[in-house]
């Protein structure tokens, strides 16, 4: 009798073990992407490219969610993904100063996080070994923007409309407290100054990377400064286009227009460069970044070696910016087809 009992017990235990194995086999790699705003064209291009790359792999499920510019929403989305046993999470931070919640949740679940495009401070990124960042060097973009501007001004002295030896400018900034915005602004202006050009800042405006906000702000500034503005610097293409829209709508003659320049190299931005409304832009290689994010996330999910990625400090992948002017804009337009 006792032997029968023991036999039954053993059978039961075996069954428990078998069941678990069956479930394991059914599991696929789950990768989650959380971006800060679905209405940011650059981000959307980036995300859809990441998804496309990942979908070409077998056994991978990708899920993208829009945080709608709310960090608390993003935190919740990440928390949901972690409880759904996602293997890797890609985060485009809403608030770059507030990644702590996400980092601690990921660390507790031992799930690696790839931050992209909106950069967090290095202390936060280095607080755990399985955090990575893919993006571009904001300073580099500012520098290139400055160089394009200074080169152009040197070649086109008519930019200084009132010929006072100074270039009156306004700058359209992305967001308050945003790393990229601050760096792009500062470095760009510094680069132009370093090139020997004297700048005269008329004003600035925050346009939240948004075209119509930039348009409104530009209109307000135009009504204030009128054609005295000689240069409009914009932290990104969307805001540059907004400025151009404002110029168009206020009916100022094209000869009176200030020179406008943005950063990113979105499709619309490149169009504006082609049409001559922008003197140039700085191409943010979203394609390379997207590919890098996709590859890195697969490698992390499969626990493969990360040697082939050449991570800086073991965590950073930065794709280089490229200058775009009317000369080479067609090449870039082709790239985006």
């Amino acid at each position, binding site marked *: 009798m006792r032997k029968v009992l023991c036999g039954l017990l053993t059978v039961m235990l075996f069954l428990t073990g078998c069941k678990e194995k069956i479930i394991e086999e059914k599991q696929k790699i789950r990768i989650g992407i959380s971006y800060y705003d679905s209405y940011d064209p650059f981000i959307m291009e980036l995300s859809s490219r990441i998804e496309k790359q990942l979908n070409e792999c077998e056994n991978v499920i990708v899920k993208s969610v829009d945080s709608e510019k*709310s960090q608390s929403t993003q935190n919740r989305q990440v928390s949901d993904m972690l409880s759904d046993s996602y293997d890797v999470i890609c985060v485009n931070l809403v608030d770059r100063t507030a990644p702590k919640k996400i980092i601690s949740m990921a660390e507790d679940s031992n799930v690696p996080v790839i931050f992209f495009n909106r950069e967090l401070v290095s202390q936060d990124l280095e607080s755990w070994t399985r955090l990575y960042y893919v993006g571009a060097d904001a300073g580099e973009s500012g520098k290139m923007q400055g160089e394009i501007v200074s080169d152009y001004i040197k070649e086109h002295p008519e930019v200084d409309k009132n010929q006072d030896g100074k270039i009156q400018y306004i700058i359209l900034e992305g967001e308050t407290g945003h790393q990229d915005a601050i760096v792009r602004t500062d470095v760009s202006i510094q680069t132009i100054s370093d090139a020997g050009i004297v700048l005269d800042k008329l004003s600035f*405006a925050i346009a939240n990377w*948004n075209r*119509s906000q930039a*348009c*409104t702000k530009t*209109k307000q500034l135009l009504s204030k400064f009128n054609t005295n503005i000689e240069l409009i610097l914009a932290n990104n293409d969307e805001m540059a286009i907004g400025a151009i829209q404002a110029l168009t709508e206020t009916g100022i003659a094209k000869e009176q227009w200030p020179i406008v320049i943005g950063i990113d190299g979105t499709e619309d931005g490149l169009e504006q460069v082609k049409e001559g409304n922008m003197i140039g832009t700085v191409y943010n290689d979203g394609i390379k970044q997207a590919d890098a994010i996709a590859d890195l996330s697969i490698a992390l999910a499969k626990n493969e070696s990360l040697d082939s990625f050449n991570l800086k400090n073991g965590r950073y992948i930065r794709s280089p910016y490229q200058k775009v002017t009317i000369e080479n804009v067609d090449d870039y337009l082709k790239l985006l087809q």
Partner: protein
Amino acid sequence: MSEHKTFKDKFDDTCNFKSISIQGLMLISFTVVSAVIVFVLEIIFYKFFSIQSAQTIIQSTKQVTSQTTTNLEDYLQQMRQLSDTLYYNSIKEIDISNATCETEMNMLYEANKDKLISFALFSEDGKLIAASPNADLKDDVDVKTQQWFLDAVSEVENLHFSLPHVQNLFDDSSIRYNWVISLSRSVSLNDHGKMCEGVLLVDMNYSYIEQILNSVNTDNTNFYTYLIDGSGAVIYHPKQMLINSGDYKENNMKAALYKDGLHNEEFEGENRNVVVDTVGYTGWKLVAVSSANPSIYENRVRYIVILLVAVTFLILMFINRFISRFVSRPLYVLAESISGLSQGSKKGLEILPGATSEVKHLGEVIHFYEQSNERLVHDIVKEQDEKRKSELDALQAQINPHFLYNTLDSIVWMIEEGGKQKDAVFMITELASLFRLSLSKGKTIITIADEIKHGKNYMNIQAVRFKNHFIYDFDIPEEIEKYCTVKLIVQPILENAIYYGVKNMDEDGEIHVKGWKENDDIYITVSDNGFGIPEDYLKTILSDTEHKKAHGSGVGLINVHKRIQLRFGEQYGISIASELDEGTCVTIHIPAVPYTEENQKALEEGTYFEKE
């Protein structure tokens, strides 16, 4: 007698067929009691926890609701303050014809852009005066027809909160549409020094409220919350889309009528607890709904409960079994050893050390009775032995060769002497009768008549032998002749009377045998006028078994006394009275038992006195 067995008989039959052991009984009763207790507790706990859990849910619902309401109130208050700040600190201070409040608007926007969509200031005819962050109105928008505008101008003293709607004002290049809740108010504008009316619009970001309520709903699975305005129109509901398409129904219209606090309602067949909390100023109500019959037995909990019940039961069973065995085993062992004993096993009584006090006591009592029994048996056996021995002795005595020789000698002398044939015949006849009575066909109990005859035979013979040295007579009434007696009790006394009493007397010795019945007793006395028995000798004569006489029968009075006692009991026997030189009187005392075949058999077997 009915051949039909009654139901009771059949029942008894079956019960007897499997008669239940103590262990089984204990086990069953413990099991039944355990089962009943466990199930009753189950049900009590279920009811208790059901109520408790409904209470707990209501508590946490109240807490969360009140917290959320506070959050909403804070948010709404912030927005109101923004509107106030913009109005009192900026708009009121300027003449809109030559100044603008755009800078302040931009600043306030930047500081609150996560909660706001936009600010906008309109004149009373719907013209846009200022806006932030976007100031491009759509071409064909007529704000005068929009609900927030109408509300503001209809009641100029208040701030108005609209229901959620899509903002239809600005030309936003990003084709984004925002759900907003419009906070609108009527404002006084200074235009060229003239006062005119306008409307200040603060479009709040609906998704801010949506997120607050979404996170409440995802964090709590026991209840869900929704937000309605004062008239019951839904502002937020987790199943909003389904309500719009009609796939889901909600009791929001009724809820709008509830006062703050806990209500119980029946909706769509479900009994629910509803907690209502009003959001200040707006008249909005936050409604939290939980089921009034929470199923605490969702799968996991159900399994845990079943597990607990099964484990408890299992443990109880083992305990029950242990206890019942503990109690019943000593009994069992005791019973076994008793039946062993009754079958003659030499093992003796087994009392296990772990037995309960009652069992121990039982064992001891049984032991005592067993020992008493042994002693009784032993006594009986001894008594039987003694009986047999004495009878054997008595019998043996009768076949004493000396008596025979002497008597035969007498007979031979009589015959040789001649002329005494008649006497010889007499002697022989008497002797034959004597021997015949001695044997009495092996019986031990005979009639008194036969015993007396035996005595007479003996005296007749002895009289001849002793040449009429003494005289004797028998005075036995007829009525007592038919009573029982042990054989060979009179003759030995007569023998004693002769040899110790009268034999050595010179004068005429006399021996008298008398018998009479007194109630239930019979007395037979043998008295002589002989030498008597000395006193100290008298004392020991009936108790000293070693005292054997070489004469005659040699059995002695002790033997007679004992046999009477053995057969009839200790209260009977012989008693001797004697006086030196005067005589001796031996009294036989036996019970009056009429001689019937039944009585004779009973006395022989020793069962006569048990009847009494």
